[in-house]
């Protein structure tokens, strides 16, 4: 578990204080994939780097599994960092070392295993990330996705309990991004590892995260289960990520000339695939037109959102029926 207690961070630039993180309280449960999303400059990297003290907090406490990491001395901090893996947007691999030597580096620095044990673990890790055939190559000979796999294997080599990911997929194409996210999700399940990842893409959050925090201007402006935040975003920043900048007001304008009661239905899990609308229409005599919609998947959970106009028949009964079928109903216009 990672806990932030009134943590602030300001950078000193030319004698001036630049606030990057305002007083923040945050709890990240063990075993979760916790996402932090925000626009560039929101303070995501700052928050992430405070966890392994690549940045020193200006005030406040950070506890990891109960231990106050802000109070660690240099030796304690080094031991702590060996238990926290980190991967980076630009991979940050040693270009002068082979793939195998890159993965072995944290183990050699820690100096706890002998050569045979290190080789064995490196082999197992490369196998796990699907790079067994590339052990003796240099990073320059690999694709971006392969480099990030090396980064992941390296970060996992000391068997950490936490993995920090700083825009780990931002330099990758969409297809490779999905593969790397898939790998992270599998690792989270297999190793019961806590993953904290930051990104500026809602898609990344939707694919792997359990919980999400939205950052803006050095504040966490919204936080919760990904399903809640994704389907019912509250803060304008969150809405801009979820709806690609399409505001509700704009939508309302678009539907001004549409008659009837306008509802937004949110389906989650099984109900996404049920033939509900037809049943409801037949049972209550309402007609509907579909104004907007999206069908998606949050981690493995299918979900959908439809904006409908209901006309004629018993609209109240239709709403009641939908609610009874585990559909979340919001009235956008009565």
């Amino acid at each position, binding site marked *: 578990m990672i806990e932030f207690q009134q943590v602030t961070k300001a950078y000193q630039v030319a004698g001036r204080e630049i606030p990057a993180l305002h007083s923040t309280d945050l709890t990240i449960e063990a075993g979760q994939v916790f996402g932090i999303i925000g626009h560039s400059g929101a303070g995501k990297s700052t928050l992430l780097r405070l966890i392994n003290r*690549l940045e020193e907090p200006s005030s406040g406490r950070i506890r990891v599994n109960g231990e106050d990491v802000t109070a660690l001395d240099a030796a304690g*901090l080094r031991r*702590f*960092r060996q238990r926290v893996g980190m991967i980076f947007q630009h991979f940050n691999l*040693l270009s*002068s070392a082979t793939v195998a030597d890159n993965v072995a*580096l*944290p183990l050699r620095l820690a100096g706890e295993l002998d050569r045979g044990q290190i080789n064995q673990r490196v082999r197992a890790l490369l196998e796990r990330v699907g790079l067994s055939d590339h052990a003796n190559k240099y990073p320059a000979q690999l694709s971006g996705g392969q480099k990030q796999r090396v980064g992941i294997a390296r970060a996992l080599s000391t068997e950490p309990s936490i993995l920090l990911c700083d825009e780990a997929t931002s330099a990758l194409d969409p297809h490779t991004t999905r593969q790397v996210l898939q790998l992270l999700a599998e690792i989270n399940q297999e190793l019961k590892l806590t993953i904290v990842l930051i990104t500026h893409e809602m898609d990344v959050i939707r694919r792997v995260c359990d919980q999400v925090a939205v950052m803006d201007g050095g504040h966490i402006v919204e936080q919760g289960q990904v399903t809640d935040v994704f389907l019912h975003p509250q803060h304008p920043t969150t809405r801009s990520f979820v709806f690609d900048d399409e505001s509700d007001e704009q939508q309302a304008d678009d539907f001004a000339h549409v008659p009837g009661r306008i509802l937004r239905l949110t389906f989650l899990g099984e109900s996404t695939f049920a033939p509900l609308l037809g049943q409801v229409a037949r049972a209550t005599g309402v007609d509907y037109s579909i104004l907007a919609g999206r069908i998606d998947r949050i981690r493995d959970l299918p979900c959908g959102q439809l904006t409908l106009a209901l006309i004629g028949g018993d609209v109240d009964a239709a709403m009641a029926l939908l609610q009874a079928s585990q559909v979340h109903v919001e009235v956008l216009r009565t």
Partner: protein
Amino acid sequence: MSELFTNIDWYDIWIATLDTLLMLGGSLLFTVLFGLPLGILLFLTGPRQMFQRNGLYAVLSLIVNALRSLPFIILLIVMIPVTKLITGTSLGVAGAIPPLVVGATPFFARLVETALREVDRGIIEATQSMGATTAQIITRALLPEARPGIIAAITVIAITLVSYTAMAGVVGGGGLGDLAIRYGYQRFQTDVMVVTVVLLLVLVQILQSIGDRLVVHYSRK
């Protein structure tokens, strides 16, 4: 052909070449020995680096710049008493090495500093995030990553030292430069001058191509 090279005593040239190689080898060894740590120190204490110390960096910088701005020929003369103190003589190969080292070390240190700055900050950061000590960051990440740059720096400094050894010849250092001045210039034996210059050129070519090959061999980018 034999007409042209009548003045040449090949034994003298052989001895002079040997002296030049000894001066070069000795001074290069000590320049790297002193310049590498100094370069690392300059890098670490420099602006926005791991051990940023503005005062120390300013002082080191000033000393390095002062020594670099001093013409080598002046350094040779100024150094004579100090050289005598260290080696017992200011003449010959032994007498030439201290001024060569003092003249080349600041330049080499700067080149090392520059090579280290070329290393991606992200790599230092990644190594820090693994729990590395500062010594480990330097030996396991910075130096291996900067190796091509440092080899290039050693090549540059070796070639600089070749021309410095020729100057050291003027104040009694011996070697090919000495030969060129004494016979070629003072006694108008142009053929001796030509041979020594060609030998120096060959030496520089060999150093450059060894350096280039090593840089290519160690570059993985």
